[in-house]
Structures are given as structure tokens and as C-alpha cells.
């Protein structure tokens, strides 16, 4: 087919216009996002960038103790008349040479080093004659073979005597495969760090030799005074040492001062002494003189602060990161499970195909709306009764357990009688009434059981916690579940009662529609609808009133009441033409709107509100993530529900199933695979999200990461990032494997 030139031209013009438009868009984008290449080229920026990148490339996983090693070579300035011959170095040992061996003051020299550690960094100094002064010349870096060569300008500090050129390297002690025991020196000032009493008020240190069978111990403070003199055997008098002339008392009779000996454990080759004191007490320079009580002489003296650590060892950044990453993973886990549990039922409300056909007659709807607040009130009352009844029993654990066994059995019989498994004919009204009463009583029994259960859980949890040692969190968890249960029983009862009452009101509505003259219904439903509308509007008004602190009854009760009544009236009049009210679609739109609104707020923002409510920490983070998960999953889930095959729903409906049965048998089996898949996907998102939710106070690794970045501690931040990368990647892998397996 021949090309149409006209069209081709038009296309070209359009294409060029589109390109021009694209360039303009990009130009504006560059402008508003401050794209500035000069900054990138600036040298200070580049050195800073390199420094940060180098820090990030060296995650602070291990802590090394370091040692400075000095290597000297003799050197003359100025050159003596007969020339200068430096000391001959041992060619196999670490050594440096200077070329030339002597220079005029300020002259240039070449320094070569041999047999240094590979890739070590160090500083070159000039040490003028008869002085301890080290004049810094330059820094150097050794190569792969441990050699270096550097040209430096000397300082003009000559003298008749020879002087030194000194190369000092700072090197890590030990390697991962060959760990070395050294004294701890975290601040690298060359002196052992002061040791402070840990937070639990106990400090145990090792005496590197066997203790006498019944030792006496004299605790000596930094001023060389004896603070405590005790013995594990009979009292004795010291004949020498710091406690000379004093009498050692049994452990417990001399309580010492701010630091005291709590326990002594002997052994074949070493002993252990435990000290007690206030947390933070500095124990530097305290000593313990160990006496042999049989002769009263000092056997040995140990310095308390003589703390030996391994080099390299796991750094504090690593242990902190480990703690936080565990917190992060479980934060994501809790948020995902909690969110999924809530999102599943909510998703049905946001599925158009399920909600579209739900419509109720006006009378029924109005009666149900009136029943809603009544039901909530009745539920709260019923929960109150049940609480009173259960409180009679909770004093005795035995009674609680008895109640937990007996009441469910009675309930089982009651429900079994009131709800027969197969019903051929509808029951008579009298039967219905008796059944309703039985079910109501059994339900109150059920609430009592829940209260008893919560009290039992708290008791069991509190009992378990101190007995499970390392697993005490299981005890606290059980107790927390009990507390949570206790807190939500009233809410659950209120909702359940409201549901039951609404159901009854609905049945009443249907009965009225079937049995009363339609003219009467048409008139009757007008005031009914007005009442329902007013009630609903007043409830909303009260909610808004409490949020904006409005106390004026006109604004809280009367105006909303009047508006609601008017809407109800309008609906009731409109229902003359249209009998049914499409409540399903209303719920669908409300649910969709709420989900979209919540979903559009990032969890990072939500966590701010939760931090105010439950305090900074992972709990706030998991609540924020859970809320976002609910909204996001409910939407994703509901879209899956909308895409299921309608056939099975039709088939199940045609067999006379109720709406809930239809969902359970025709909808749920179809949505299980996508639901699992979306849940795992969300789990991925939550793990990633939980790593940064700490930026806003939500706990987890993000808290640490933010702290390290603010402190410019990039090496520690690098450990955090490494941990995040590992966790996210492994969770990703894990979830994709699970998805493959299940779906």
C-alpha cells in the first residue's frame, strides 16, 4: 500500500511537537528539582562522597583492638663531613631506609619500607635529635607485598647528633581465624578503658589462677584503703598486705561501700569473683587482694578492671543491628497477620459483585437502623452483667476452671437444642420464642466464659512468666492475650447484640410487609424512616461534636436530627416508587472511599499518630503498618472477589443458600490462591516498609539507621543497610518460594 504523504507529514510535525514538548517538560523538571551539575563536579563534594562511600563499603561488623607499631631508621641532618652511614637493618625484619641517608635541613628524601603488613596505613614522622618530639611528615599506605615508597620534605630541625625517621603503622590485632586476647580499649587512647558497673548491678570477673580453699578477700579502693575484708571460712587476721592487722569477717557481715564482693567461686585453675554495686559505678583501679586464710598472707592481687576481650569481636553495631532487625521482622509479621485477618471480611464489603444485589425494603432498613444503637446499648449492658457474674468466680482459679468447663457444656446443649441441624418445617412462633430466650441466656453464658477465659489467661501468664526463664515472653504473651480479650469482650458483645437485634428487626420488617395491609405500611414507614434517619444523624453529630469539642446541643443533637429526619422522610417518600433501598451499593461506596483514603496515607505518616497514642517503638510501627495493610489488602482482595466466576455463585444461590453460605461455598474457594499470593506480597512490602518506619518513631532497624546517619556514623549505618538488604532479599526469596508451593 502506498504511503500517504500528507499523513506522514502530519505525523512528523506531531512527532517534532511532541519532542519539543518533552524537552520543555524536562527543562522545567530540571529547574524545579535543582539539577546542578556544578555541585557534582566540585572537588569538596567529590572527596566527601568518596569518604562516605568508603565508610559505607566498610560496615562496622567487627571491632578490632588496634596497636601502633613504630619502625625507626637513623638519619642525619645536616650531612656530617665524612658522610653518614645509617644502621644496617635486618633484611628479614620490618625496616625502613632513607635515601639519601643525610640531607641539608628541609631537603627532600625518599623513604622506603619493607616487610610491613599488606595494605596497612601509617604515618611518617621525623624525630629530631635528643627530643621526644614527633614531627609529622606524611601518611603512607603499603602495597600488596607490604612495601611502600614515599618522597617527603624534611623539617628544618637539624643537629649534630643523628636523628630518626619513624614510620608508625596502626594495625588491627588478630584476624577472624586467629583471634587474640587483648585488653579492651574502645576509645583507642592506649590505656585500658574504665569499667563501669553494668545496669544489672552485678559484675563478675575471672581470677586467672586457683584460689585458696577458704580465701580471704580484701576489696581495695583506688585510694588503697580496704573497703571490705571478708572470708568464706572462719575469721582470721591478715599479717601482711593492704588489710594488715584487720580481721576478715564472714561474707555478709562486712557490707563494704559503694562496691562490694557478692560471691566467690573457686575452681581448679581459675576463680570467679562477683561484685555488686550501683549501675555506673566506675571500677577502675579497684583491686582485690586474695588472702590464704590459713596463714593470713596475701596469695595474689587482681585488678578489677583487668578485662580481657577478644580481637576481633562482634561489634556493638552488629549486636544492636541484630536486635533491631529481629524486631523489624516481627513488626512486619504482626502487621501482616493482623491486617490480613481484618482485611478478609472487609474485602467482601468492597466487592461490587457481592454487594450490588443487596437491597432491603424501606421498612426493614429503618427498623434495622433503629435497632443498631439499641443493640449496642443492650450488648454493653449484657457484657456488664456477664462481667459481674464472672467477677464472683475470678477470685478462685478452681472456680474459674470449673466455670470454663461447665458453662460451655451447658451452652453446647442449649445451642444444640435451639438450632437443630436440619429443619424440614419452619418452627411455630411459640417454639421460636422459647428458642430465642434459651439462645439469649446461653449467649450471656458465652460472654461469662470469655471473661473467665481472659482472667484465666492473665493468671496463667503471670504464673508462667517467672518460671519459663528465657521463654518468659510466652507468659507475658498469654497474659497480654487475656488483657486484650478482656478489653474487647464488651465491644464484641455490643456488636454481636446489635447484629442479632438488627436481624430480628429485619425479620419484624419482613413480617410486617407480609402480614399488614400495604397501605398501612406505606404510611407507617414514613415516621419510621424519619426516626431512623434522625437517630443515625444524631450519632454522627455526636461523633463530630466530640472531635471538634462542640457542646452546643443545638449543633450536636437538633440540627443533625432534623437533617437526618428530612433525609429519612425523603427516602421513604421516594420509596413509594421504588420499594427497595440499595443498601449494598451504599456500603460498597463507603467501604471503597474509606479504604482509598486510608491507603493514600503512607504508614510513615500514620505512625506519627500511633506514636502519640502508644508511644515511640515497634508497637506504634506495627499498628500503623497493620492499618495500611488492612486498607491496601481489602482493596486488592475485593478486586479479586470481583473477578471470580459468577457461575458457582449462581449455582449455590439457586440451591436456596443464604448470603453467608454463598460466600463460604462459592466465593471463598475461588479466592484462596489470590488471597495467599497478595498476603505474601504484602508481607514483602511490610518488611521493606518496617525497615524505614523507625524514621518516624515506629521502632525497628530504621530507628537505628536514622540515628547513625544523623551521627555521621556511616560505618554503623552500613551495617544496618547490609542487614536490611539481607532480610529483604531473603524474605523476598522465601515468599516467592511459598507462593510457588501454594498457588
Amino acid at each position, binding site marked *: 500500500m502506498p504511503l500517504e504523504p500528507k499523513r506522514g507529514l502530519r505525523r512528523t510535525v506531531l512527532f517534532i511537537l511532541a519532542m519539543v514538548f518533552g524537552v520543555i517538560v524536562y527543562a522545567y523538571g530540571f529547574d524545579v528539582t535543582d539539577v546542578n551539575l556544578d555541585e557534582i563536579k566540585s572537588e569538596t563534594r567529590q572527596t566527601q562522597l568518596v569518604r562516605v562511600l568508603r565508610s559505607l563499603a566498610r560496615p562496622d561488623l567487627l571491632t578490632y583492638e588496634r596497636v601502633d607499631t613504630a619502625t625507626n631508621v637513623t638519619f642525619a641532618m645536616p650531612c656530617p663531613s665524612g658522610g653518614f652511614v645509617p644502621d644496617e637493618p635486618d633484611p628479614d625484619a620490618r625496616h625502613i631506609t632513607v635515601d639519601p641517608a643525610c640531607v641539608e635541613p628541609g631537603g627532600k628524601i625518599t623513604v622506603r619500607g619493607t616487610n610491613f603488613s599488606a595494605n596497612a596505613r601509617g604515618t611518617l614522622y621525623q624525630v629530631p635529635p635528643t627530643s621526644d618530639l614527633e614531627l609529622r611528615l606524611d601518611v603512607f599506605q603499603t602495597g600488596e607485598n607490604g612495601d611502600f615508597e614515599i618522597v617527603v620534605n624534611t623539617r628544618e630541625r637539624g643537629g649534630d647528633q643523628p636523628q630518626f625517621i619513624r614510620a608508625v603503622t596502626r594495625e588491627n590485632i588478630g584476624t577472624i581465624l586467629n583471634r587474640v586476647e587483648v585488653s579492651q580499649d574502645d576509645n583507642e587512647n592506649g590505656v585500658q578503658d574504665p569499667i563501669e558497673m553494668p545496669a544489672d548491678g552485678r559484675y563478675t570477673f575471672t581470677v586467672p589462677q586457683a584460689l585458696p580453699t577458704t580465701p580471704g578477700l580484701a576489696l581495695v579502693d583506688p585510694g588503697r584503703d580496704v573497703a571490705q575484708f571478708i572470708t568464706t571460712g572462719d575469721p582470721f587476721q591478715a599479717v601482711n598486705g593492704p588489710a594488715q592487722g584487720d580481721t576478715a569477717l564472714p561474707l555478709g557481715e562486712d557490707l563494704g561501700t559503694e562496691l562490694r564482693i557478692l560471691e566467690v567461686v573457686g575452681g581448679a585453675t581459675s576463680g570467679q569473683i562477683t561484685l555488686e554495686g550501683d549501675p555506673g559505678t566506675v571500677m577502675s583501679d579497684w583491686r582485690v587482694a586474695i588472702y590464704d586464710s590459713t596463714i593470713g598472707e596475701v596469695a595474689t592481687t587482681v585488678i578489677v578492671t583487668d578485662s580481657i576481650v577478644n580481637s576481633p569481636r562482634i561489634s556493638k553495631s552488629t549486636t544492636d543491628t541484630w536486635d533491631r532487625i529481629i524486631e523489624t521482622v516481627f513488626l512486619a509479621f504482626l502487621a501482616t497477620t493482623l491486617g490480613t485477618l481484618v482485611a478478609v471480611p472487609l474485602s467482601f464489603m468492597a466487592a461490587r459483585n457481592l454487594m450490588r444485589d443487596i437491597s432491603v425494603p424501606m421498612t426493614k432498613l429503618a427498623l434495622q437502623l433503629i435497632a443498631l444503637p439499641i443493640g449496642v446499648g443492650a450488648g454493653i449492658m449484657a457484657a456488664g452483667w456477664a462481667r459481674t457474674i464472672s467477677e464472683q468466680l475470678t477470685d478462685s482459679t478452681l472456680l474459674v476452671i470449673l466455670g470454663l468447663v461447665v458453662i460451655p457444656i451447658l451452652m453446647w446443649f442449649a445451642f444444640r437444642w435451639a438450632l437443630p441441624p436440619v429443619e424440614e418445617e419452619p418452627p411455630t412462633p411459640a417454639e421460636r420464642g422459647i428458642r430465642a430466650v434459651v439462645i439469649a441466656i446461653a449467649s450471656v453464658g458465652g460472654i461469662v466464659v470469655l471473661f473467665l477465659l481472659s482472667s484465666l489467661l492473665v493468671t496463667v501468664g503471670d504464673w508462667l512468666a517467672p518460671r519459663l526463664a528465657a521463654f518468659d515472653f510466652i507468659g507475658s504473651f498469654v497474659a497480654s492475650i487475656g488483657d486484650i480479650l478482656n478489653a474487647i469482650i464488651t465491644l464484641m458483645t455490643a456488636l454481636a447484640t446489635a447484629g442479632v437485634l438488627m436481624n430480628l428487626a429485619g425479620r419484624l420488617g*419482613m413480617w410486617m410487609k407480609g402480614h399488614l395491609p400495604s397501605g398501612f405500611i406505606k404510611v407507617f414507614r414514613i415516621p419510621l424512616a424519619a426516626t431512623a434517619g434522625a437517630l443515625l444523624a444524631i450519632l454522627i453529630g455526636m461523633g463530630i461534636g466530640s472531635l471538634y469539642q462542640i457542646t452546643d446541643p443545638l449543633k450536636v443533637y437538633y440540627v443533625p436530627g432534623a437533617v437526618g429526619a428530612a433525609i429519612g422522610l425523603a427516602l421513604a417518600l421516594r420509596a413509594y416508587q421504588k420499594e427497595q433501598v440499595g443498601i449494598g451499593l451504599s456500603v460498597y461506596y463507603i467501604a471503597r472511599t474509606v479504604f482509598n483514603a486510608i491507603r493514600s496515607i503512607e504508614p510513615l505518616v500514620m505512625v506519627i499518630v500511633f506514636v502519640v497514642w502508644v508511644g515511640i517503638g515497634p508497637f506504634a510501627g506495627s499498628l500503623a503498618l497493620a492499618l495500611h495493610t488492612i486498607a491496601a489488602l481489602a482493596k486488592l482482595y475485593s478486586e479479586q472477589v470481583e473477578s471470580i466466576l459468577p*457461575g458457582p455463585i449462581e449455582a449455590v444461590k439457586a*440451591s436456596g443458600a443464604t448470603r453467608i453460605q454463598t460466600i463460604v461455598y462459592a466465593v471463598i474457594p475461588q479466592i484462596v490462591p489470590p488471597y495467599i499470593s497478595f498476603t505474601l506480597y504484602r508481607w514483602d512490602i511490610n518488611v521493606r516498609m518496617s525497615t524505614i518506619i523507625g524514621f518516624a518513631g515506629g521502632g525497628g532497624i530504621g530507628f537505628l539507621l536514622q540515628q547513625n546517619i544523623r551521627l555521621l556514623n556511616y560505618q554503623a549505618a552500613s551495617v544496618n543497610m547490609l542487614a536490611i538488604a539481607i532480610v529483604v532479599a531473603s524474605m523476598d526469596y522465601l515468599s516467592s518460594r511459598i507462593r510457588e508451593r501454594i498457588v
Partner: protein
Amino acid sequence: MLKVEHLTKIYEGGTLALDDVSFEVPDGQFLSIIGLSGSGKSTLLRCINRLIEPTEGRIIWNGVDVTKASQEEMRRIRRRIGMVFQHFNLVHRSKVLTNVLQGSLGYVNPALSIINRFPRDQVRKAHQQLSRVGLEEKAAQRADELSGGQQQRVGVARALMQDPEMILADEPVASLDPVLAHSIMQYLELINKEDEVTVLCSLHFLDLVHRYADKAIALNEGKLVFEGPPSEIDDDKFKEIYGQEAERVG
């Protein structure tokens, strides 16, 4: 006795699917409904158990006006009307037995059934229905592991589970090959003859209508264009039902 009186259905958007359709089906009859695709056969069947709400007209079944029934009453009516679908409408991921047990949902206690508890006699009955359609050994398999013909037999077993007084079959054999089509039709015939269940069955192929139906009605663009014994459908009637350009294929 099923009486359909002046049944009219207008879908949202104004499509007239059924136009003043009236006919009667005595108990125990095998009635087949024929007509082109889109002539309103499916709509008619679904109006009878109100999966689709009729716009006008009445459906009287056993003296009860189905169109006036409340939701609760409708449930009780539906559980006596089995339905068989062209695409079987089984839940693919559920077991065959569960699919059959769905037929008892209208009878069992709703609260227990939602946690998948069925009374023992219902489970036994489900096994019996499966053996009646020759699929007893497939009870524990997933429904989508079965072939098309087997799936439709499960569909029939599900309808039988309801102890139906009437079965609505919406093109039950349109997705099956001719051999399987006859086997499914024979099951429906058996149910019709042995259990004296009224069967309303929409069909495409006239030979099936001649072979199985006591009576036939024909729809064209929502209007009833023929009512009588299948033998009366001659070439003229055929053209009237299917249009002038249609040709008989079987």
C-alpha cells in the same frame, strides 16, 4: 403444577428479554425450551427461581406466587428447585463431595454449614447421589480434575441433593460432545421418569428435543412462538422459530 403468566423481563438498559410469555407445565412433565441464542431461554429459566427478578407477570408454582415471595420464602422455594447449568458452575477448587453437598445448603443449619459441618445423613446422601451418577470413587477429588461430562454429572448430583420437585436445566449439554450429551440427557430422563421430577430443559439440538421431551415451547426474541409436542415442529415451524435463513442440522 407450574404456571407462568404474562412474564415480561426488561433488563436495565431497555433490552426486552421476555415479552408476555405464558405457559403451563403439569407435574412430572419433561418440557424442553428451544430458540436461538439470545431468544430468552436462560432468562426464562432464571426468572422461575428468581435468580433474575421478573419485571412483570406471575409465576405460580404449587399454588404459591414465586414472584411475591420474601427472601426467606424464596430460599425455601429454591431448595425444592434443582438447577443444572451449561458451564456446570462447579467450584473448581472444592472437592467433588463438597460441590454435591452444596445442594443441601438450603436445608442444613446455616451456622454449622459455614464452618463446613454437615449432618452425617446429608454426607451419606451426597455419596448416594454421586454413585447414582456413577462418580462415587471421585468424591475426594478436586472438581476441576474431572472431565466435562463428569463435571456435568456432578452438577446433576448436586441438583438431586436438593430432593427437587423440579429441575431447571439451562442448556445442560451445549458444552459436551454428542455421546456425553446423550448420557446427561438420559440421567435427566431417568430422574424425570423414576422420581417424577418436572424437568424444564433448554436445548439447542432438535433431535434431543424429539428424543427426550414430552412437550416443547419455543422462544424468538422473547416471544413464545410455539407450544406443543416436539413432533409438531415441521419445517415451517422450524423457520418460524429459527428464522427464514436457518437450516436444519439435526
